[in-house]
């Protein structure tokens, strides 16, 4: 009972905080200081934080899959869904089901195989923390923002500006669809069956399950006290207690302590189990079912990827811009598009936290293998010269933490100027909006006709922030844009040649 309550409290805290940092468009919580994202299993692995991974594995070896019940937000989301389901279906109960071993390990092998082959997208889709992040970013965050705008509307009307309106826009259709499917599929499974996702598709669940089979503390049914009432099995959201056989499949158990709490006979106990080695086994052979499922999963993912590819081709046909970016603009700290694709699992914490709202999930900019990973988009803003937020919150090390000086010396892309699109050239009127926004004066204005000035580029000092592209008023195609650097380069420091001291002691008129 105590252990269950501890789990509940810790789980609720994790779920609340992790949910909030993904919806927190106003930056109320300092997400970079909250380590909850950084101790997630896959992010820590990709960050090469072996000590974190080591601690998580050790915890599992000692106490079972408590990670799945306390730290994993996707697991907690499923528990919450189950709780809500119980309100609507009072007589709802769980039943034992055998382990789908082929599906579990098959999926894990597929995830690892595709990842090694350079396709991180399958890992991104199934990795529970990132899948949770996307669900919140794409489904809950817009609702939160709409709510904020309604509240702001009322407050502002009465002259209170504690709340302010915020712009809501579609971050990325593909990620929204993936997030929605994730929500519907995992939500449905959790509503009806419990932790099915964790014990079939989740790669972290499979790895930790392999360890928890042998953990020091495990759940065990004591035959002498058990009257086979089945209460434990009916309350087991992992469907891993076979009350008839009086066995617990500890590889699928997520240590929720529901069984020990409901058992009236104290027949099922969480106890030290290294005295005699008896790894519990569960699951009979259901190979045909498992392989069929695996086939369908693969088919589904292939179809999704293929259809999106066709869609992308269609998209390119309708855009009639005279210029198109050849390489995507990977975010600061990503070092290169390749480094990003290898390390990112598309949790979208950077997308949710970017104060300038310029990070959006990629579609096919990095190829199918890097789908949903963050890419810079200057249609709603530009990268603030003095901001390093995304590099601070990234739990995966996909965006390496940058100091301000490092950020200033990073060239994410290079400015390109199309003179024939520029209003100074076409209309012969003043503009200079690009230069106005340029933090380094990589774009400066030089004499043109009469008093007119026209943009002039010094690409060596360009950081690729996109201020010029965002603000360029030329329509329909902009006159200035940033071409992405596939590998980030070093931006030279601008030469500060304004040292002359001017002294004035009269008004000049």
């Amino acid at each position, binding site marked *: 009972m105590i252990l269950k309550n501890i789990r509940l409290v810790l789980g609720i805290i994790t779920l609340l905080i992790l949910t909030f940092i993904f919806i927190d468009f106003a930056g109320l919580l300092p997400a970079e200081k909250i380590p909850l994202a950084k101790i997630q299993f896959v992010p820590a692995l990709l960050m090469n934080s072996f000590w974190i991974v080591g601690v998580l594995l050790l915890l599992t070896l000692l106490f079972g899959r408590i990670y799945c019940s306390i730290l994993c937000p996707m697991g907690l989301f499923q528990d919450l869904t189950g709780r809500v389901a119980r309100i609507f279906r009072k007589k709802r109960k769980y039943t034992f089901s055998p382990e789908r071993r082929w599906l579990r390990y098959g999926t894990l092998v597929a995830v690892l195989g595709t990842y090694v082959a350079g396709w991180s997208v399958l890992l991104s889709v199934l990795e529970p923390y990132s899948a949770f992040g996307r669900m919140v970013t794409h489904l809950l965050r817009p609702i939160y923002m709409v709510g904020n705008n309604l509240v702001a509307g009322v407050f502002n009307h009465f002259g209170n500006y504690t709340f302010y309106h915020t712009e809501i826009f579609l971050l990325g259709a593909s990620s929204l669809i993936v997030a929605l499917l994730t929500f519907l599929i995992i939500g449905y499974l959790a509503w009806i069956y419990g932790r099915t996702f964790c014990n079939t598709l989740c790669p972290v669940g499979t790895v930790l399950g392999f360890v928890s089979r042998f953990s020091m503390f495990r759940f065990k049914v004591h035959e002498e006290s058990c009257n086979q009432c089945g209460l434990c099995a009916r309350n087991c959201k992992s469907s891993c207690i076979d009350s008839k056989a009086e066995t617990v499949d500890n590889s699928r158990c997520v240590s929720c302590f529901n069984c020990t709490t409901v058992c009236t006979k104290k027949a099922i106990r969480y106890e030290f189990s290294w005295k005699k080695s008896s790894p519990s086994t569960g699951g009979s052979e259901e190979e045909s079912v498992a392989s069929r499922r695996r086939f369908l999963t693969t088919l589904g993912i292939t179809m999704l990827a293929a259809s999106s590819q066709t869609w992308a081709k269609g998209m390119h046909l309708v855009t009639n811009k005279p210029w198109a970016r050849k390489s995507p603009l990977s975010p600061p700290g990503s070092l290169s598009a390749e480094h990003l694709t290898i390390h990112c699992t598309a949790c979208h914490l950077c997308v949710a936290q970017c104060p300038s709202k310029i990070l959006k999930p990629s579609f096919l900019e990095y190829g199918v293998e890097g789908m949903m990973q963050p890419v810079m988009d200057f249609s709603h803003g530009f990268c603030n010269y003095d901001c390093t937020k995304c590099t601070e919150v990234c739990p995966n090390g996909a965006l390496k933490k940058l100091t301000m000086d490092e950020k200033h010396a990073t060239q994410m892309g290079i400015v390109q100027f199309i003179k024939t699109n520029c209003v100074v050239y076409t209309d012969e*009127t003043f503009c200079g909006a690009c230069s*106005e926004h340029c933090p380094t004066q990589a774009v400066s204005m030089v004499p043109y006709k009469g008093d007119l000035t026209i943009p002039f580029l010094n690409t060596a000092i360009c950081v690729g922030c996109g201020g010029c592209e965002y603000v360029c008023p030329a329509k329909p195609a902009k006159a200035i844009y940033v071409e992405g650097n596939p590998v980030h380069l070093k931006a030279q420091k601008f030469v500060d040649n304004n040292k002359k001291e001017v002294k004035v002691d009269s008004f000049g008129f």
Partner: protein
Amino acid sequence: MKRRDFLKTAALAGLATTFKLTEGMDLMAQKTAKTALKAGGTDLVAVMGGEPALMFRKAIAELGGIGKYVKKGQKVCVKPNIGWDKTPEMGSNTNPELVAEIVRQCLQAGASEVVVFDHSCDDWRKAYKNSGIEDAAKAAGAKIMPANEVTYYRDIALPKGVKLKTAKVHQAILDCDVWINVPVLKNHEGALMTISMKNHMGIVWDRGFFHRNDLQQCIADICSLQKPAVLHVVDAYRVMKTNGPRGRAVSDVALAKAMFISADIVAVDTAATKFFGQLETMPLESVKHIALAQDLKLGTMDLSKLKVKKIQL
């Protein structure tokens, strides 16, 4: 709050938002502004050599005190330049001490509230914070208003406008009784200078339209709005002489310790441009929007016609 109360409040708010400012109300506001103009003896004050707050106190006293512009019970809007995520030393934004002093004086004159806002270019939350203006203005008793979303703007007509006939203007300007324009003096790579007139681009939503449709003319056009600022206070304490309006290093900025105040927008920008000409070459005629505003009869570039008071501290 009970659900019923909340719904009532929300319904009231909805009802209230359906009321719009009428032309008549606008004209009334304009009249008060005009009367304020006539009463003074001095037309333009130039001050030099002091700290921002002190220079403002001297200058406003010379014009007859803030009470001439702000009446008891009026809602006041103070519009500084908070364009950039830059600290005060960089000279990219209006001096926070100056903004705070103006806010304090308005409240002392009996203003019912003072609202401060700007449509920033950089992320507005960072610009408001790092410019020092949010904190300084709040401490002085002002209310800070966001300007990041189109919902904060309403359409107005600009009958005198040549290129710009309508614009979405921030509600703080439209809903106040009087507003005070507090620009900072900077060079501007696009418009050549940014002073009182260019600072009006921070009261509109769609700046892209300006840049697409003859920037200099649009700047003059927006200044012809029916409710002009009662006073333009040009902060030339730190003057950005190069790489403006954003600036990239402290060396872009000269510590000039000056200030120009007038109700005549053309005159005050003329004076400030001439002052700037001592720091960097800037022929007055090249700053086209000033002459274009004179064509719209918004003021005079001929400073000899005005009663100018120069104060050296």
